């Protein structure tokens, strides 16, 4: 039985960390301004791995970690393609994943955008000549934006998303 009074005496758990990145904050503020113009209040992103090595996924998931925390800029990662505005695809599309990629894209409601993240999603990268891979994502889906890199850092991914949002109004 915990004594409720002890909650007042416990050390506080919130703390500040010194990693404020001005460039990131500026970029984030701009994104926050742009998103309502097209996407209502927030940008819902579904991530799909069609055959990459894992590093691009780790960088995308790093966008949600405290250093970057893109949720405060209005970007959220959703669990289902039916809730998504943007499909972030990584990996050169393997033959085993072609079906799944197509079905995920078809499950998204219009208007939808596709972003290819990483060298292998852009044009096949190092797996270009392999039998097991179709090549970049543009072989199966209409791609609106390509973010190259092996893997692209979270800031680069954020810049790419900002460019997408800016151009989305056209």
């Amino acid at each position, binding site marked *: 039985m915990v004594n409720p009074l002890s909650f007042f005496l416990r050390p506080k758990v919130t703390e500040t960390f010194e990693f404020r990145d001005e460039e990131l904050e500026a970029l984030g503020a701009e994104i926050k301004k742009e998103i309502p113009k097209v996407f209502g209040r927030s940008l819902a992103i579904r991530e799909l791995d069609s055959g990459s090595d894992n590093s691009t996924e780790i960088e995308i998931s790093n966008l949600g970690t405290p250093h970057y925390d893109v949720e405060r800029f209005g970007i959220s990662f959703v669990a289902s393609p039916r809730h998504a505005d943007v499909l972030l695809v990584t990996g050169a599309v393997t033959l085993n*994943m072609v079906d799944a990629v197509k079905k995920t894209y078809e499950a998204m409601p219009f208007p939808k955008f596709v972003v290819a993240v990483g060298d292998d999603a852009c044009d096949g990268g190092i797996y270009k000549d392999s039998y097991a891979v179709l090549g970049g994502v543009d072989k199966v889906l209409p791609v609106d934006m390509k973010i190259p890199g092996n893997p692209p850092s979270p800031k680069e991914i954020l810049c790419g998303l900002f460019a997408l949002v800016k151009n989305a109004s056209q």
Partner: protein
Amino acid sequence: MTNSDQNTECFPTLAGLRLTDNHQILMNPTIPVTQETTKILNDISGKQSQIIRMNNNEFYFYQGEEEFLKTVPVLSQKGFVLISLFCVQDFEGNLDFTLFYVFRLNGFTDVFTFIRHVVAETTSIATIFPSACWYEREIRDGFGIEFTDAFDKRRLFLHEAYPENFHPLLKSFRNGKIQFVENPKEAYTFKQVDGEGVYQIPVGPVHAGIIEPGHFRFSVIGEPVFNLEIRLFYKHRGIEKLAEGKSPLECVSLAEAVSGDESAANAAGFCMAVEQICEIEVPVRAEYLRVVVLELERIYSLLGDLAGMAVDIGFALVASPFFILREEVLRQNDKLTGSRFLKGIMVPGGLKTDLPDKSLKRLPVFLKKFSHMFEQAFERAIASSSLIDRFATTGRIKRELISPLNLTGPLARASGSPADIRLDKPYGAYKNFAPKLSVRKKGDVLSRFEVKADEIRASVNLILRFLEKMPEGPICAEYDYDSGTQARGYSFALVEAPRGQNLHWVYLKNGVVDRYKVRTASFCNWQAIEHAVIGNIVPDFPLINKSLNLSYAGTDL
């Protein structure tokens, strides 16, 4: 030269290991392993088998088909573990297929490979060594060799989109785009569990989070899971075929591409195998720096695991410090090597560029601050009773599974098996400094959490000690790759990646890679999850999955 002469000269080596700390090496150095193995072989067959000995405790045995079939059960009784089984076409003049059965005895340095010549079909050893099941399916998909009495003959990495009789690893197939089957008729058969109240939950390949694709089919009765069958290989990119015909330098980036968060370990494994073939001696500074890089990789990978485990029970407060620490380590990686994931730093012979001195000097300061924050974060995690409630007794992996399935890495150490390649078969600078081993007995999620936290601490200590003793000198061996067109040979390299034992086997012919076999720890460890979830409830599955944190990309290649 008779067999007995060879026996007297090859005693079990602890590979020059100098016991500098008071760590436990659980080996018995008085049993000559090679003599024992040759004794087994002689006992069974009465004949003397052909031994090809290499420089670094690799032994290749060739026996005839009959003797091999008699040897296999005896190896199982003596406790040998099958660590890999792969096929090579056109090996050393044999134009048909050569199967390599690779065994190790836990705790001993030597790697024993039995060679078997096959033309089109052969028998399976999966009933004696269960881990052979997946390897044989892999060989069947890659080369078309039928294992006549195998109990599982389904395809492994070629899903339904690939046409019939397509075997990509055959030399007759030139790598290139193929026509795939649009609407396949045959579906993959999963094990059906029938009964009142039993229903199936298929999950995947696209998962709800930011994670790689894979398929899980649960059979549940209410909440508790009754059976789980996994189907992976959605990310099969054909890495082994891509490697063929490339020079060793070109292949390093392919080795890194096997799995993004094991890139340094796989690159190191590939480079070590090439160095052993070409007899390149890596300078000491390069060895030390390589170890620093490998341990940094281990730290950030395990931090991701700890954070992920906390996220999967919905405890963001505990997960955040680990995410923060991981990001800090990734930024340090960037400062040291120019790549957040330590890609592009290893080459055969050493390192591509030296790590900048300024950053190396700041690293101990960073690590001390890191340790302090890590301890605070860990304390906060362990102090939470709800976390302990979710973690303890969940997802138990029994010790009896470790040998038959060749489970390695933190998950095996959490279940009581003290195997670690850095101690059993030390490579590079691990011959001078050994990490502290952390073993738990229970094998549940809490044990894995504790083992991973201990390994992070051990890695930090190891890096600090290496930085203290860092020698000056060249960072890459002088090796003329142009004249290396005559390089030929084959060799193993075993590396302890963050997830466990990675195996690399490279076969060079005329200076280019003829066959590259890579088997990451995840390939073996995935089979443990089917056992770990039985009896647990479905919501615990993401937690168990994250506590193992296996690589889909590393399995699928």
